[in-house]
């Protein structure tokens, strides 16, 4: 800012600020982009990696055979215990399955590892609890809808 063009500079500065004011004004006239959560929910895509659920086959039984593939794939040990029944002859089914949401990274590696498509990450993103124990899900709380039902 040299002395010679001080006047020009002042005028240009003022103009630049007026330009900015026009931008804010045009934005004020645009529709709002925010949503009124929680009254207005944001649509969550189908592929969302949220809460883990166990799926059931057509016979209503769990698809999980307690093969431990998901446990081995999990990077953060969020699936600490899996036990199946030991009935001979029939296919093995999971009896105990624990998912620790507080450890989960929601990376989806367990779903990818599962050879039976028995687990899935769902659109449920709000996983809250009053203490840590609430975030440890056993099989009862992990049950998803059976085949044919909508998610």
């Amino acid at each position, binding site marked *: 800012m040299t002395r010679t063009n001080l006047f020009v500079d002042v005028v*240009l500065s003022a103009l*630049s*600020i007026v330009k*900015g004011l026009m931008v804010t004004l045009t*934005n004020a006239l645009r529709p709002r*982009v925010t949503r009124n959560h929680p009254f207005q929910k944001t649509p*969550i895509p189908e*592929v969302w990696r949220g809460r883990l659920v166990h799926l059931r086959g057509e016979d209503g039984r769990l698809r999980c055979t307690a093969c431990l593939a998901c446990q081995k794939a999990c990077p953060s040990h969020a699936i600490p215990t899996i036990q199946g029944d030991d009935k001979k002859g029939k296919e093995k089914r999971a009896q105990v399955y624990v998912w620790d949401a507080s450890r989960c990274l929601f*990376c*989806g590696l367990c779903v990818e590892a599962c050879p039976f498509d028995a687990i899935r990450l769902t659109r449920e993103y709000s996983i809250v609890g009053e203490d840590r124990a609430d975030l440890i899900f056993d099989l009862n709380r992990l049950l998803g809808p059976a085949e044919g039902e909508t998610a």
Partner: protein
Amino acid sequence: MTTGLTPTEHITLNMGPQHPSTHGVLRLELELEGEVIVACRPIIGYLHRGIEKMAEARTYPQVLPYTDRLDYLSSSSNNMAYVQAVEKLLGLEVPERAKYLRVISLELNRIASHLVFLATFANDLGATTVFLYGMRERELIMDLFSMWAGARLTQSWIRIGGVGADIPDGFVDQALAFCRLMPKRLDEYDRILTGNRIFRARTEGVGILPPELGVNYGASGPTLRGSGVEFDVRRAEPYEVYGDLDFEVVTRPTCDCMGRYLVRMQEMRQSVRILEQCLKRLPEGEVRAKVPRVIRPPEGEAYGRVESPRGEFACYVVSDGSPRPARVRFRAPSFYHLSVLPRMLQGWKVGDAVAILGSIDIVLGEVDR
């Protein structure tokens, strides 16, 4: 002290770890004389999670989700650097479509990250409204990511051998619509911020980083390109399909905050260009190569280099032949940028400290690892 004047006393000002402008949990010990900074000592480590140590106890695929948490504003680049190193070790060839999808993901992430830069930089300088504009446009990218990867920030969607899944229907159209919108919005930012006299007064000539100093300190990315050094990993060592794409490496010779800011603003336009090319050329085919269930790379070491929004993000992987890496090291650009910061701050005022820190665009997640 014979003048009879009271000697000025330096005060030590602790900026951070909880301060609105330190972009996370950085702590700067500023020694001030009045408002002028005499010395600065950055203190880091508040976000250290030991990811490099954790990686030693995990299998190769399992490390991937942790890389998201380094530079959490552009998890694609982190994934890419790690995956690139592992693929080099394995000698794995990735399907063409996956390469394009990776570039799309990387460039979307670059725009998103630069938008956060724009937003926070403007906010640091007091232009709160631009903050919300930047976040508003970034949300469009987040929508794209969530419909593709099912996550907004921590996507881990660049996987060893390809990408996590193919893009869903409608993705290309939505992405192209974004590409059409973005340049208009960038013009708007230019009108409200870049041209603004006050903004220029705050950034022009402030926080000089001479090119030699930058190179000597390992600075990279927009921070170095703002000093006129034409160094971009995408050009220097093209990975994926960057070699076939038409884009400019933006540089500015001014070495100041304005230069770094302008480089990023221009880079967003270049990213839009890259995105348009990729979306139009996207070949059909597989998105993931055949990868063995248990990944056991042969003994050796590899260095995966990626141009992240902040600079050269690299991953050094040493394999001892077991399914777990012997060493995973992440070369974080912000780490190096922070180490030059004291040199850049000297002699400037507290208000400039915020501007200069904002202009090197650090993410503490990758600094502390």
